[in-house]
């Protein structure tokens, strides 16, 4: 066969991109232009970054100059750290408990009433759509400054997100295993216990662990708006320009997150391999 004959088998493969899929090509062009426009609009330049970085130099120096270390208020720092950990743990734990029944109701496989399912899903979307910081500010107004407001905001946002993830996991569960249980004549509760829960339990646990870890980090931010924990200690010190103590707290937070990350990886591995 000649070259021409081969090309005629699939001429489209030899078109340039703009001719083969003009929509994709236009998309690329638009993204490139938008990207360049944003760079221009925000006056994004290397010089600007460098001059900003040089302003940061005294802060960095102050961070690494640790004076009268032994007079620091370790009591408040470690209490804050423990509060943050507790907020994240309790918030995630409560959200997990609430989300298990919600996910059954929000899942197609288990619950047949479409309207209720729809309403629950939209409600979860709404909770999730409002950022955790906004919940924290609202709760601080209602319940006062302190970790309780932080705990509630973590709980709220997690119900929205875990509820969705759990119900998706339930939706994606293997229908054959459920059918197999139904075929034995088992009751609905037994079908859920044996046909569904062994499939979704490891997923639930591993997602909750991820959230525990990421909530520990969010809980730090929550302190900034007054919702207690180590974040509060951190902001106070930054406002007072105690950069050495700021760095110390940041290091402690990093260590705490690393420990949780490692621990949850070990737990996940054991649950999934089981």
């Amino acid at each position, binding site marked *: *066969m000649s*070259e021409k004959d*081969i*090309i005629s*088998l*699939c001429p*489209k*493969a*030899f078109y340039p991109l703009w001719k083969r899929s003009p929509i994709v090509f236009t998309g690329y062009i638009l993204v490139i232009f938008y990207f360049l426009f944003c760079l221009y609009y925000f006056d994004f330049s290397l010089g600007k970054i460098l001059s900003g970085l040089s302003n940061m130099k005294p802060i960095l120096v102050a961070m690494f100059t640790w004076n009268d270390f032994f007079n620091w208020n370790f009591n408040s720092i470690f209490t804050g750290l423990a509060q943050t950990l507790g907020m994240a743990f309790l918030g995630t734990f409560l959200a997990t408990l609430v989300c298990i029944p919600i996910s059954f109701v929000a899942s197609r496989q288990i619950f047949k009433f479409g309207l209720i399912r729809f309403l629950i899903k939209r409600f979860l979307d709404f909770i999730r759509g409002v950022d955790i910081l906004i919940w924290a500010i609202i709760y601080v107004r209602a319940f006062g400054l302190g970790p309780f407001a932080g705990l509630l905001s973590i709980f709220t946002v997690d119900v929205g997100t875990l509820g969705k993830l759990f119900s998706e996991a339930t939706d994606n569960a293997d229908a054959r295993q459920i059918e197999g249980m139904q075929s034995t004549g088992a009751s609905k509760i037994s079908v859920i216990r044996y046909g569904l829960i062994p499939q979704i339990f490891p997923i639930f646990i591993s997602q909750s662990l991820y959230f525990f870890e990421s909530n520990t980090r969010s809980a730090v931010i929550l302190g900034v708006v007054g919702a207690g924990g180590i974040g509060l200690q951190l902001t106070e010190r930054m406002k007072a320009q105690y950069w050495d103590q700021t760095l110390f707290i940041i290091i402690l937070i990093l260590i705490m997150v690393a420990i949780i990350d490692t621990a949850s990886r070990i737990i996940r591995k054991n649950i999934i391999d089981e």
Partner: protein
Amino acid sequence: MASLEINSLVKKFSETTAINDISIRILDGEMVGIIGKSGAGKSTLMRLINRLIEPTSGSIAYNGIEITSLKGKNLKQWRSKCAMIFQQFNLIDRLDVLTNVLSGTLGINFKLLKLLKIYSKKEKIEALTYLNNLDLSDKALQRVGTLSGGQQQRVAIARAMMQNPSILLADEPISSLDPKNSKVVMDDIKKINKQDGIMVICNLHSLEIAKEYCDRLIGLSDGKIVFDGHPSSLTKELAEQLYDLENE
């Protein structure tokens, strides 16, 4: 004549010995079927030849060049020379057929533009020619994931041919195909062997197919060679022993 020589090859996994002191010589142009029940070490042998896994000891040489010690660029060159097709096809589902076939050139002729899926006209023509030979030119721009198993295996063959190989390793190429597609794929492999003179080493668990298509059979059992010869000299007793039939 060029040949693949395997000498006292051993591959141990933590507790089991998958390949236990194997020596074979395969000549260019041969079509060899490796037979044996699952777990006999067929796949391991194939992966060792392509160097997807490392042997515990022993040697593999092609044309007098030791394969087991190749590194870096030379290793990649060797892999592109011994193209491989798999039971589950191992294609990139989300990319179209033509791009999958063209990706066979990445090992022998890499260019940065290829990371943007941009290939030369010459390569596209070559890829389309292989697809046309395998009756797939009309599917060129379709996503691989949408094709049937038989079609996907033929795309895999086209990708292998794009590598311009000296050896074609086929690891259970028809195990996930129906009888009709099995025949099409085996015919295509045979054609590559006969027309292009490419050495084919093919793992098969079906003895009938192996006898029908291969000039030489090698029987593996527990990582050892228990038969090596023309299909006609494989006795019924030996075949039964090979597949452990008396135990079933």
